[in-house]
């Protein structure tokens, strides 16, 4: 049973909210670990899988930069700890997005756009599917122009490279627009060929993620201690079992995998 792309968006948003609401390194570390687990369990094989690593590295970099910024002001243990925790929060958000990118198929995200957004979503899908052709076309143009003896490096060469690509692209756009028009684009209310079902797994994951987000939001609203550990003075952070359990709910997508199914 696959998880509906909207459910993944809900999961990423809720995990983001959980991370936003706290700077407690224990909660954040748990969320990071869960994001890693969900990635490992659910990632779609293919090029998007490497985005997790990219976001992980970006997260570490953000944390490092954030901590380094302290050195522009007074440096003491409190400030450094404070900065490190803020940095860790940023890193957590980025890692969550890394997981989201690795588990969703870009076309799926676009295809499930609500009807109002159909045209912009379609344009985005088109951009994605035409891009490889544009890149291949650029390589061909470059080679062909080299064979003519034209320069292909430096600024002067740009018109000879860019114009054929653009002109051909424009002609393709006309063909595409004609084809879409002739096939009824914009006619009226659309239907969906394979509506992605909201299956049990998607509902379960969404529910769990929402619960986690609500728990942390409520905790933040009522000012529960431990969400923002004190750094002035520097004290060991408190953790509550309840919030740990709530954060743990974010692992449901990874736990609900049936054997063998992606």
């Amino acid at each position, binding site marked *: 049973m696959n998880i509906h792309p909207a459910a993944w968006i809900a999961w990423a948003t809720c995990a983001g909210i959980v991370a936003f609401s706290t700077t407690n390194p224990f909660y954040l570390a748990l969320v990071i670990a869960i994001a890693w687990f969900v990635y490992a369990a659910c990632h779609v094989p293919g090029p998007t899988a490497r985005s997790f690593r990219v976001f992980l590295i970006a997260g570490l970099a953000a944390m490092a930069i954030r901590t380094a910024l302290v050195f522009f002001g007074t440096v003491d243990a409190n400030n450094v700890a404070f900065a490190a925790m803020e940095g860790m929060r940023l890193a957590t958000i980025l890692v969550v997005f890394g997981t989201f990118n690795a588990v969703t198929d870009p*076309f799926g995200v676009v295809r499930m756009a609500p009807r109002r957004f159909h045209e912009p979503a*379609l344009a985005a*899908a*088109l951009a994605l*599917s035409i891009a*490889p*052709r544009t890149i291949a*076309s650029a390589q*061909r*143009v470059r*080679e*062909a*122009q*080299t*064979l*003519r*003896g*034209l*320069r292909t490096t430096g600024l002067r060469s740009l*018109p*000879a490279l860019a*114009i*054929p690509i653009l*002109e*051909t692209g424009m*002609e*393709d756009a006309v*063909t*595409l*627009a*004609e*084809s*879409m*028009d*002739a*096939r*009824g*684009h*914009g*006619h*009226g*209310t*659309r*239907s*969906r*060929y*394979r*509506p992605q079902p909201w299956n049990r797994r998607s509902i379960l994951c969404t529910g769990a993620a929402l619960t986690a987000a609500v728990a942390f939001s409520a905790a933040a609203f009522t000012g529960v201690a431990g969400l923002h550990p004190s750094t002035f003075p520097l004290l060991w952070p408190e953790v509550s079992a309840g919030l740990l359990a709530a954060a743990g709910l974010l692992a449901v997508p990874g736990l609900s995998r049936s054997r063998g199914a992606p």
Partner: protein
Amino acid sequence: MSDPALRFDHVTFTYPEGARPALADVDLQIAEGAFVLAVGPTGAGKSSFLRSTNGLVPQFTGGRFRGRVHVAGRDTTEHPPRALADVVAFVPQDASASFVLDRVEDELAYGMENLGVAPAHMRRRVEEMLDLLDIEPLRTRSVRTLSGGEQQRVAIAAALTAGPRILVLDEPTSQLDPQGAEDVIAALQRLVHDHGATVLVAEHRLDRVAGAVDVALGFDRGSVRMGDPAEVIRRLAIGPPVARLGRLVGWDPVPLTVRDARALARTLPMRIVAHASAAGETRISVRGLSAEHDGVPALRRIDLRIGGGEIVALMGRNGAGKTTLLRSIVGVHRPSAGDVLVDGRAPQPGVDVGLCPQEPESILFADTVADEVRSTLQARELPDDPDTILIELGIDDLASRHPRDLSAGQRLLVAAAAIAAARAPVLLLDEPTRGIDPDAKERLTRFLRSHAADGGVAVFATHDVELAAAVATRVVMLAGGEVIADGDPATVLGDSRVFAPQMTRVFGPGWLTPEQVAEAMA
């Protein structure tokens, strides 16, 4: 008496920036279930006519439109194209540029989604179309990974799922190899004969389709003559080689298929003995050449010697290695073994060898045709005289036109001029006649002959059997990266079942062109 599928009432149409009408007082009716062919030179109005059937003309293109077009009873000026999607399907020439989604299945469903068809019904129609066009094994494939013929069939299926009974296609086989073209024409025949569809096709490549249609529309400068295909083709002085032969020897009606021609060929001329054309000194020497493409072996130990004055046709299925061989000869593809020598040394790309790429528009970037040639001349530090090469290719009258405003055939000639202006003694062309009209093909042929006559070498990769038969002095066949045949056209093409020209099929090996046969018959 049922309504006609298409009715044109005194239609005159001029494009927004057009000087003269693209369609001039077109008045005709097409009955349901007819298989119709639109023929005529480029610019005569075929394209505008096709687009008038579904409202793209005038609603998409703009312009001045007089008269009325009724398709399945609906007036195209009162219904936008999207409102006609359920009665008429339109398939453009370049199928790959018309795809909207990624998977074949989804592409087929797109039209129905637009019209709000219920999911259960959609699934049924998709299955029907997959079977009808024989593309069921492709259903989960990405459209970008399909071959040309497969893409064309998917485009046809996608246009038909919404249920239209009228199918309009703009040069569907122009960019396909022979097998792909066969498959598409066969699919169209099935649609007409088994399912009662009305099919309207515009084509330049008439060898296969001319014999399959019931009615032809002959276009000439905007006006249309409707009639029997043989008659229309004879009158327009175009057509497959058997038709050209028919005109030359005065057969009436001209045959449109090899079968018709065989019936008419009573006298069998004497067998011509094939003789190897005397080639000049070796200019291209390919020794033990092996090359890879995307990590897969594309060429295996090719040995080839080509002399001055030769015009070589390189033929073979898609993926046989033709493009890789051309690129190796020009010097941009590094071999994994063996070497290529041009005039005794490693070729300097663009200087010793010129290559006109498969998509000629990928090199056009100037504002005028003359400027296009000039940029090559300047880059090679040659005298600023674009007209010479333009005259050689017969396009000097286009010198001040914008290259992108020209037809596919004219663009090919402009690209060839831009490449040949560098005066490299060896000229390579990758599928030059793809999608071009007979007139441009004629000019290209003449140019190749004069280039060879001056001692140069021309090598072109092609699927166009008739081109090879008409102009090549030698044919090299590739399969799986190896040379499987190499010799004079009469022998090599005469031997092949798939690549035999029509004259060979009618009269036997050794006969290549209608002119040749007509001369022997006189």
